[in-house]
């Protein structure tokens, strides 16, 4: 029922757009009717043009996201469990973390050129900090009782890490990861808008440049669907991983 009313609202919005555009209240060239965009969207999707471009963007985003997870996850857990390491790194992290990822694109272009290396490193930069902060918080807030029990049973360090800290930090780490997912897509698209020759960001820019406006909107729509799909997939995956967790069940997850 809830889902149905959501769909009704969506259809109503599309209807308003269609009417506003058809009535000529806005420039029909810049705001083509939804039906026109939908037809172009379908055509470009069936022909494989948009899926191919979106696929490239998706691959870059996933590669950057995973690299960030591999880098930031362990570092965050280490910082969350070691006061000394945390004291050492926190000032640097807090200084760099607020820098908006798009702002590092010009610098990355100067350092790394305009190739895949530049794009990936900017995505890694964007995803690194949400994951790091999630991991630090999660590891820091492991209940002291768990640690004491683990110590009483003489657990080894790796046993402590994989048996106690990682599961306890799971929801917080997952929250950081979920924040990083849309960031990865956003930055992947942004990085494709400078000096790229492929990817959905490049496609949208190119269509704007050649005044192919319905095609441009179709590209944007694909991005929306891609983002939605990624979010759903990540939520499903995390629910499966963390479904047993009280904190996750009690609303940290949702």
């Amino acid at each position: 029922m809830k889902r149905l009313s959501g769909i009704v609202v969506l259809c109503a919005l599309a209807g308003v757009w269609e009417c506003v555009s058809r009535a000529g209240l806005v420039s029909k060239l810049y705001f083509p009717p939804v039906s026109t965009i939908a037809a172009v969207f379908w055509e470009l999707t069936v022909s494989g043009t948009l899926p191919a471009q979106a696929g490239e963007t998706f691959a870059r985003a996933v590669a950057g996201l995973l690299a960030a997870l591999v880098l930031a996850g362990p570092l965050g857990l280490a910082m969350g469990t070691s006061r000394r390491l945390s004291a050492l790194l926190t000032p640097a992290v807090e200084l760099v973390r607020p820098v908006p990822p798009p702002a590092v694109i010009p610098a990355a272009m100067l350092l790394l050129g305009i190739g895949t290396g530049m794009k990936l490193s900017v995505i890694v930069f964007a995803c690194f900090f949400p994951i790091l902060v999630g991991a630090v918080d999660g590891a820091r807030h492991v209940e002291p009782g768990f640690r004491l029990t683990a110590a009483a049973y003489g657990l080894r360090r790796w046993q402590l890490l994989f048996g106690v800290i990682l599961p306890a930090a799971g929801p917080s780490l997952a929250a950081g990861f979920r924040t990083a997912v849309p960031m990865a897509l956003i930055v992947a698209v942004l990085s494709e808008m400078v000096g790229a020759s492929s990817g959905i960001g490049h496609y949208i820019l190119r269509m704007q440049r050649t005044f192919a406006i319905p095609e441009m909107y179709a590209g944007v729509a694909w991005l929306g669907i891609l983002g939605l799909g990624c979010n759903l997939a990540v939520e499903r995956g995390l629910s499966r991983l963390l479904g047993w967790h009280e904190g996750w069940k009690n609303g940290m997850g949702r």
Partner: protein
Amino acid sequence: MPIAALAAFVLSLFLAVPALAADPTPLKVGYIPVGDCLQYYVAEEEGYFAAEGLAVAGAAMKGGAVIAPAVEGGELAIGWSNTVSIILAHAKGFDFAFLAPGAEGVAGANDVHALLVPADSPLTSVAGLAGKTVAINTLGNINEAAMRALAQKAGIAPDAIRLVEVPFPDMAGAMAKGSVQAALTLEPFVTDAVSRGAAKVLDPSPHAAFGSPYLIGGWFAKKAWIKDHPAQATAFARAVAKAAAFIDANPEKARQILSQRTKLAPELAAKIVLPRFPQRLDPKALSGVIDVSARFGLLAKPFPAAEILDAPAQ
């Protein structure tokens, strides 16, 4: 009480309008800060706009593909664009037309564009660029059409060269980094890179396919705007035509103005190739560009050049 205050404020706005109308209405014009838009600087410096009763407010922008939306939206009345962007916009149903010519290219005489490669590049011909990456300023513009034509002439597939968008000032850096293997750029960047020894010319006339002369770009507006503002459109066209005549007659002074207005080193401004600035719109200078755009799929089918010319009688 707040309602009364609001009403008074709104009323004052209406009263303010006639007061403003006494002064010349500001005419918003978009241009690109490169040598191709020299007319704009000259018309300002020499007071041609003011002499025509125009209070021109200029906005320096990145390229025709960015200026066009601003003209369509009404933020700008008149803009400068390369010809291909206007050709494509027309094909997509935009109501644009050139009202005055901008820069014109004459093959062999005043090539303002050049295809550059790094000075140490092993490449000696365009054919060698197959599978390589070349920088152009904006996608889907006159330089993309030119690159496709160059590739075909060199005997490789028109889309065998990868094109990426890099702003003109960043192209030399992108070449030095190895991100791109060549760059289609224009003055003053050609003379700058070559005289610094950073680059060499791979093709000195990359726009030869358009025929000669060909219109590089011009001043355009919405046809509806031209129809509603015939006096302003004519005045503007006259002012830039005067500027064209001035550049023709006083190239040294024109170079000085360019150097001052674009912060270009005077030595460089003295050395660069200047485009030719015609005083009248010639449909023939446009049809070659339309044909090439159609040949390489930027345009579905060619159309008569007259469709995008709306030069007011001067």
